[in-house]
């Protein structure tokens, strides 16, 4: 459902993505791990056209990603994104955040969207917070609203960019819990994370990238337990045992 062929991307003279290719099938859960600055976020941002790749092709359900074309709107409604810093709209309530896209982008019936929005908030465990503003919610709650907002677009896939990195440790679990339940329902997910144990448990496949290229990839369970490449081993050791 998502195909990347030989993607390159530079910021000025900084060649960040150097020939990245991957295929993500329907219902597949792929985790991308790698050191800071290796290009993980950039890859995700290219997939939904927040960033423009310099060369190579990205296809979403067969449609090329090109942020200058009208088709980008369609692609963005098919591929939702969840950000590290939640990025909720602070002037709108939890429910309004969730139904903003369905009502204003997809032009859904307001009552139907509200009803579905409430169901989605319930699904992420926030049925009692629909009138709360983001500023009144904890980080974990905000991120769950952000996931509900992504789900409200009825996407075929969701991209997660370090969804728990900005959270206090005791709030990480509630967000991972929601993601795990999504995984159980067959949602296609691409997850950039440093939560290795979680990745090992829910992901089908893992990609380790360093300096903009895939160094190693394989089934998540094996690869994250017994990586073959020295660079992957080294990285995992540092993530798992920071001291």
């Amino acid at each position: 459902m998502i195909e990347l062929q030989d993607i390159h991307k530079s910021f000025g003279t900084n060649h960040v993505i150097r020939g990245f290719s991957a295929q993500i099938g329907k219902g597949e859960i792929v985790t991308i791990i790698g050191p800071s600055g290796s290009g993980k976020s950039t890859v995700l941002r290219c997939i939904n056209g927040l960033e423009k790749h310099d060369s190579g092709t990205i296809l979403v359900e067969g449609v090329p990603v090109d942020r200058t074309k009208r088709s980008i709107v369609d692609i963005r409604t098919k591929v939702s994104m969840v950000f590290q810093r939640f990025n909720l709209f602070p002037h709108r309530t939890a429910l309004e955040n969730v139904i903003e896209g369905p009502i204003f982008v997809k032009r859904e019936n307001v009552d139907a969207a509200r009803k579905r929005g409430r169901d989605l908030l319930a699904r992420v465990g926030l049925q009692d917070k629909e009138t709360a503003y983001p500023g009144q919610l904890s980080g974990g709650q905000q991120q769950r609203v952000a996931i509900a907002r992504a789900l409200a677009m009825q996407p075929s896939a969701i991209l997660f960019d370090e969804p728990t990195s900005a959270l206090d440790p005791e709030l990480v679990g509630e967000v991972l819990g929601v993601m795990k339940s999504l995984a159980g329902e067959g949602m296609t997910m691409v997850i950039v994370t440093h939560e290795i144990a979680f990745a090992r448990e829910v992901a089908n496949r893992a990609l380790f990238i360093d300096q903009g290229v895939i160094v190693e990839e394989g089934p998540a369970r094996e690869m994250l337990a017994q990586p073959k490449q020295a660079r992957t081993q080294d990285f995992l050791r540092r993530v798992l045992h920071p001291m």
Partner: protein
Amino acid sequence: MQKFINDAIEFLPILLQGVKLTVLVTIGSLVLSTLLGLVWALMRVSGIKILDVSARVVVNFIRGIPIIVQLFYIYFVMPDFGVTLSALQASIIGLGIAYSAYQAENFRAGIEAIEPGQIEAAQSIGMGWWMVMRRVVLPQAVRIVLPPYGNVMIMMLKDSSQASTITVAELALQGKLIASSTFKNTSVFTLVAILYLCMSLPLMYLVSRLERRAAQGRK
């Protein structure tokens, strides 16, 4: 004091004619400067180079010329190009254009204060540029922009007196006319000053309330 009250009773009706024009010029040019300022600001943040640069040139051009010269230009020079305006129209257009440059800078600062992350989130649910502006950026920018906007209103109220230079008999000019025909300078200009204060003090109060609200909102 009794003399002043008698003068006041005599001159107020005429001065209120001036107040009417002052209010008209202020509100007219406020509306025009707001609309134009919004256009310049949106061009600046459009991300389209040519629009950005044109807006920047226009704004600097406007800022670099004194308001009074802009008024003279519109009132005295435009007729040579076949555009004849009444003094009132010319003053509203002139002040509107002149102040649009300040409005634009204020609006742009407000727009740019919105976190880029929110804009990306809006884009990632499929919103186009204009919808991002309308649904995410502008509603939040308004709160940031309101206090300085109030200050601009006060400045425009006072600067509406510049319309007198192109014969609009607003409050200041009306006062000068009465004074020069009656020689009651003290009474007349005291009245003029009081009338300006009656309009600007409530505005200042409004601004300080807006500022307090904005400060609370940030918490």
